[in-house]
Each structure stands twice: as C-alpha cells, then as structure tokens.
C-alpha cells in the first residue's frame, strides 16, 4: 500500500453532494487509507474467536465460511432478544436527519453512509428484510434489502468508520445511539472472523499479558524505572513505586499506552510524582496493567473477559479501592459496564481519599475513582502546592473525551484541575466541547497507521476547533484525559494545526506541582527547559 500523502488543503475539499444513485444501489467501494488490515490468525485464535483465516478486504473473495448468512441472521435474532436498545433502535428512527451532520466522519468525508442515520440504515434495511412483515412483503419500497456479500462488505467498511463516540445520540430526539448499532455490527462481523488487526492484536496481548501493548511484567517495571530516573533529573527526588504489592490501600490502573509512547509517558510521570508527593499507599499491577479495553470493540463477552482482571487483582492484593488514570473508553466501560459484568465489588470499601478524607459517594458501587475527581478534590481542599507559572509558556485548551462526557458526565473536574495548574486556559467553541465534543477521529481501535486518511478526516472537526483557538488565542497545548487522544491527536495536530502539542492533564499538574525537597525546577516534565525559569537563575 502506498503511503498516505494527501495534503490538508486537498483533504479538506469535501464533496457534500450525494451520489446520483440511491444508497442501496451504490455498492461499497473499499478505498485505500480508509480501512484497517484484517486481524491476524494467531490473535483471533488466542482468545478463541471464530473463523480465523487469511483474507484481504480489497480482494473479491473474503473467504467467508459456509452458511455465513445464517450465522449473521441468527446472531441478529439473538442480539435483538438480548438488547432492548438494538430492538428499539431498529424500529423507531424517523430519518429526520438531525444526526446527519453531527458525525465527525461525515463532516470530514462527506460520504453519505457516514451520516449516523444511514450507517444505521445499512443494518436496519437487513433487519426489515428479514425480521419485519412489511419488509418481507414490500421489499425495497419499505427500505428493506437482502443480506448479500456486498451488504456485508459495506457493514465491515462502515462499522469500522464509526468510533462509537455517541455524539449523534445527543442530538437524536429518541436518543438512538449509533454506538449501540456499531457495537452490534462489530459483534456480528466478529462471528465471521471479520475483525481488524489493530483491535485483535491488543485484545490478544491484553488477555495473555495484561495490557494492550503486550508489555511483560519486567518491561513494565523497566519502563517505570526510566520515568523514575527522569523524575529524579527534573526534581532531584527519587521515587520508588511498588508493583503487585499486597496490602496497599489503593490499586492504580491506567491505560498501558501511557507507559510506552510520548506524550502519554509524561502523564504517567505525572501520576508517579503526584502520588509520591501525597505519600499515597498505592500499588501498580502488572496483571491488571490495562485500564482500556479493546475487547469492547469486538464483543461484549470479550470486553468482560478483559475487564475481569481489575476486580480480580484488587481482590487478590486486598486493596481498599481502585484509582483509575486518564482514558476515555476505559471510563465508559468502568462506569457503565464493569460492575454489571464483574461485580459486585463487595470486597472493596467505598473510596475515601486518605489525604482529604473525602468519601467518593458517587462511586459507592464500582469503588473506582477517576484521577480527575481525585485531583480536583485535592486542589479544592488545598492539599497541593502548585506553581502555575511553570505552565505559563503554555496556552491550554481542553479536549473532552467522547466517553467521559457522553457516557459519564465528567466535565467540570478536569477543567477545575486545569484552571488551577495553568494561567492561560481557553475553551474551544461551545458546540465542540462538553457533551457536544468531537472525537479525536481514531477511537474504538481505529488508531492504526494504514487508515490514516480516515483518521485525518475523522479528526478534522476537532482539529478545526483547536485551530480556532490557536489562531485566536495562540493556544499551543491541547490538554485531555485520554490515552488514545494522546496517541492520536498529536498526529492530527501535526497534520491540521502544526504548532499545537498534546498533553494529559496530569502532566500539567505535575509540571506545576511543588514537591517537598525538590531542587529548583529548570526542566518541565518533557525534560525541556522551562521558559523563564532558567533566566531568573541568571538574574539571581
């Protein structure tokens, strides 16, 4: 496959005129740079997913198993019985079109099948044709169609062009949630082995090794040891974190991505510094070393299998409660799924901050607190000494993650934290933040490299809002609370808004955090000189 080289000014010429042919008569065209490579056989086999095989999306023959139509239709029948959301959302859409221009993939591509309503119709049409009387009799006139290979290919192409961000669901008068439909679609595709490598790989790694990146225990420790060395260089303080320690008060779980690549690693350093300064009795786990859950992008069962490690490890180590790091979909899973799957967590206690004594009543069932809630509480109670001026070279804006905003409602906590650690904070336009926030464009396991055009198109609305504050206020730092954001927004910023860097919120906290016994800071968390700080030394 040739490298993706289209320039931003070319890519932003978006054709919004729908094709001449009706959508049902417009066969799917699988375009380069818009899809991800298929899953590897060994990854599917590791977790026991069916129909692992070699196949290529661009080839005519997808080597589908015999009777695949029956597999899909029986699967649909089963999902309709299991999920009221699915059953209802197949019936009640009136195609008012309110969702149409709310999807980042539609805004960035103009492809009508990326309008949430039409992406859902791809499946509804098959539902009507096979599960409703009107559809069976009236066929196409009622919007029904048969399940054919081309329909299946269309599903695969477009259900992997949805990041389950739920923005459409905010605007839908009936709350129809395309994320639910995409989840069902992917669950069905998975029955035929039509998974993608970028999801199946992390799933298999997470199942066997505890985290998406497949970091083995000693590697996790050595990664963190490197952070510890860097922290010592910056602060003069030697931190000694613990791993798999029984009897710790708190288990800390965060996405493994932050242990691996910039700028996520700086967020991880931030955690280490914050917890050290607080003298927190906590431990990392190498077994439950993943907060995120790529299983959530395959099947409900797989998501549950991966998620089980968090409570299991909390129980084994005998901690009192769990603290979770910055991540988007991780928190959708933790908020809306974990306790239902793997609870009740009756072996844990309702979380109480050992520093402030605050009891986090809102987590009394899951027993898991978000780092932004935890930090906001610390700041509110005056427990952190902060030197905001260390972030004065940054003009910061905040990107709400899809899942923490629309699947949780964590909006004010990170803002409160940021406003207390930065002097220069600017909001993006109101229709692009909070519950109306835009996806980074690469969520739900679509953060591969071979689908770069898709990612840049999907990332366009978010980047464009950043550009607005970049031009208006000189914003040069995009803060967030999500590991996938940190991994993907950097690429999107470099493409659409050069000059804007990406940081986790806790990195900025650590930058401002005045630690007991630290040397005078001349470096920020990225080991780059702190502007202003080195100059003041010279004056002295």
């Amino acid at each position, binding site marked *: 496959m040739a490298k993706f080289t289209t320039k931003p000014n070319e890519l932003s010429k978006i054709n919004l*005129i729908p094709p001449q042919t009706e959508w049902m008569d417009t066969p799917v065209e699988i375009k380069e740079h818009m899809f991800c490579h298929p899953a590897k056989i060994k990854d599917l086999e590791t977790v*026991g997913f069916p129909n692992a095989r070699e196949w290529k999306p661009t080839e005519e023959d997808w080597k589908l198993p015999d009777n695949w139509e029956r597999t899909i239709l029986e699967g649909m029948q089963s999902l309709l019985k*299991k*999920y*009221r*959301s699915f*059953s*209802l959302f197949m019936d*009640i*859409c009136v*195609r008012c*079109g*309110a969702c*149409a*221009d709310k999807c980042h993939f539609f*805004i960035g591509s103009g492809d*009508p099948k990326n309008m949430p309503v*039409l992406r859902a119709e791809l499946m509804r049409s098959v539902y009507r044709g096979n599960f409703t*009387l*009107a559809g069976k009799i009236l066929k196409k006139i*009622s919007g029904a169609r048969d399940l054919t290979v081309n329909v299946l290919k269309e599903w695969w192409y477009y259900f992997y062009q949805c990041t389950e961000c*739920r923005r459409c669901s905010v*605007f839908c*008068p*009936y*709350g*129809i949630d395309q994320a639910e439909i995409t989840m069902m679609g992917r669950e069905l595709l998975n029955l035929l082995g039509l998974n993608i490598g970028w999801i199946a790989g992390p799933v298999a790694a997470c199942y066997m*090794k*505890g985290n998406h990146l497949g970091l083995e*225990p*000693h590697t996790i*420790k*050595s990664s963190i040891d490197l952070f510890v060395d860097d922290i010592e260089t910056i602060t003069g303080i030697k931190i000694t974190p613990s791993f*798999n320690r*029984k009897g710790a008060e708190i288990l800390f779980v965060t996405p493994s991505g932050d242990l691996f690549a910039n700028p996520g690693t700086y967020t991880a350093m931030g955690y280490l510094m914050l917890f050290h300064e607080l003298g927190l009795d906590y431990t990392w786990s*190498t*077994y439950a070393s993943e907060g995120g859950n790529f299983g959530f992008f395959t099947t409900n069962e797989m998501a549950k299998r991966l998620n089980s490690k968090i409570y299991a*490890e909390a129980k*084994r180590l005998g901690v009192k409660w769990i603290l979770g790091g910055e991540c988007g979909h991780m928190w959708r899973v933790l*908020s*809306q799924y974990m*306790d*239902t*799957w793997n609870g009740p967590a009756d072996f844990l206690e309702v979380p109480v901050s050992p520093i402030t004594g605050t009891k986090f009543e*809102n*987590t009394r069932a*899951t027993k898991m607190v978000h780092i932004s809630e935890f930090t906001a*509480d610390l700041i509110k109670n005056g427990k952190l000494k902060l030197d905001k001026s260390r972030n004065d070279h940054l003009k910061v804006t905040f990107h709400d993650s899809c899942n923490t905003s*629309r699947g*949780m*409602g*964590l*909006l*004010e*906590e990170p803002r409160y934290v940021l406003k207390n650690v930065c002097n220069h904070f600017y909001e993006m*336009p109101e229709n692009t933040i909070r*519950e*109306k926030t835009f996806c980074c464009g690469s969520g739900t396991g679509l953060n591969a490299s071979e689908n770069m055009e898709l990612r840049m198109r999907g990332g366009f*609305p978010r980047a*464009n809002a950043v550009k607005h504050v970049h031009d208006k206020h000189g914003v040069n730092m995009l803060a967030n609370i999500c590991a996938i954001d940190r991994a993907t927004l950097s690429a999107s910023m470099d493409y659409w808004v050069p000059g804007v860097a990406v940081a986790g919120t806790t990195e900025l906290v650590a930058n401002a955090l005045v630690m007991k016994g630290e040397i005078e800071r001349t470096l920020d968390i990225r080991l780059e000189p702190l502007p202003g700080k080195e100059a003041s030394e010279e004056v002295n």
Partner: protein
Amino acid sequence: MKILFPFVAVMTLIIVVVAGVQFANLQFLFGVIIPYAALVTFTAGIIYRVIKWAGSPVPFCIPTTCGQQKSMPWIKQSKLENPSSSLWVIGRMALEVFFFRSLFRNIKTEMREGPKVVYGSDKWLWMSGLAFHWSFLIILLRHFRFFSVKVPYLIHVIESLDSFLQIGAPLFYMTDAVILAAVTYLFIRRIALPQIKYISLAADYFPLLLILGIACTGVMMRYFTKVDVVGVKQLAMGLMTFNPVIPNGIGVLLYIHLFLISVLFAYFPFSKLVHMAGVFLSPTRNMANNSRMVRHINPWNYPVHVHTYEEYENDFREKMKMVEIPVDKE
C-alpha cells in the same frame, strides 16, 4: 419512485373510498367496520410492539449523559441533562416528550473557506416538529366533542384557546393552519435538502401525505363545504356506543377523512410512527446515570473464560522474580 409510490398510494386510497361510497353504497364498511378494525389494529399493534421491546432486557446502564455528572458536592450536577435519580429522569423524559429537548440542541454544520467548520443554530426542524405534533394532539383532542354527549370542559377550554383569534364563522382554529404549514415544511425539507432527500424512504413520505390528506379534508369540511355536524356527531356517537348508525347526507369528504385516519391508525404500529411509544423505552434517555453508585443487573450475564492471575504468574514467574516483583508461588 420514493415519492411517487406513496403519492399514488394515497390517491388510490381516496379513489377507493369515493368509489365505494358513491357507487357501491359501502357507507357501513367505510363508516363503521374499517374504523373499528383500524382502532383494534392500532391498539393491538402498539401493545404488541411495546411488549416485544420490553421483552428484550436492558443489560447495561447506558444513558447518554448530556451534562455534568453527580460527583463531589461542590460541583454542580446538571440534574436534567445527566440525572442520577428517577425523579430527574422523569424530568428529562418530560422535556424530551413534551418539548423535544434533544432536537432543540440541533445545530447546522457548515464548511467555510479556510477551511473552517462553523456551527449555526438551526431550530427549524425542532420548531416544525413541535408545531406538527402539538397541533396534531390538539386537533385530536378537539375531535372528542363528537364522541361525547356533553362536551367536556377541557375540550371547551382547548377550543376557545385554539380559536382565540375570533376570525370567521365557524371560528378559525389556529392549529388547522399550523398543522398544514408544519407538514408541508416537513415534506418540502425532505425534497429540498440533498442529504435528507438521500436518506428518505417511501415510508417517510407516505405518512406525511396521509396526514396532509387528513388535514386537508378536515379543513375543507369545516370551513368550505360545511359538513353536516349533527350527522357527524350521530355517526361518532354510534361508534362510541357500539350502536353504529349511518346518517344520511354527511358527504363523501367525511368518508375520505375517516378512511385516511383509519389507514393511518392501522399503519401506525407497523411503521416508524411507533416512535410515539418507543421514545419512552429508549435506554439512553430513560435511565439514571447511577451505575457507579448502584449496581445494574444484566439478566443474561454469564460466566466467561478469563486468564487468571495464577496462569499469568505461571507464564512470567521467573521474569517477575528477576525484577523483584512479588509472586504468590515461589
């Protein structure tokens, strides 16, 4: 085709009823049997639908949160947009059902030079949707004067509010104009906006045309042909008391009106119109966001294969010991 088919369908319905009443004397069929059948179909169909939806459980607590969560006491929760208790869920649902809260959020996304994406307020869909649904409801309620011996007080109030402009004789009802305008707008928008046209099905045009036909015949009878109201009331009361009579001289327009309504009612449960009942069951709106506080139960939750810590330690014990990570078995 998508527009032609429903148009022809509605026209055919009208021709059928005109022919049936004018030439075949099928007044009893169109005035009594079909309305009864339609009402039974509507009621049974809606019940069937709701039972079918309700038969599928809600395995996870999946509200779409549209505001600040309940967390610490000093952070103000957005109780209507992100309710954590049933009371506020009722509030959220009431806003949704009576005022179309989510549609009110609607914004228009446009691309400008730059490239720059801009978001403009777009309340037309919300306004026409709300105008259509409310006027439909008010008109429906007004019709109860035909079905009750003594017109209920509430109906009087609705009528006088609806006709407070005091124009014409019989008095002009605002909702009659509003519903015609709203339905026409909703129809035109489906043709004029390229994206909306692209997603529209015959099943989207059909109910609009049907309702337009119902509203037009109603307006014609009230303001122009001046239907025999006493006769209509006789027919309605006959239906109501299960003692059907076919009065003379109520005119073919009434039969068209009644037949189109019957078709709409019978069609209702088998079409997208079931959103009327469905909206109440939508899990993204009717659930409290309290799954971190109260465990939500999935009735079909089942045990799954997991990779246990023991298996993990067996895989990595030596490597763990090498870097002094504690292990359970030496």
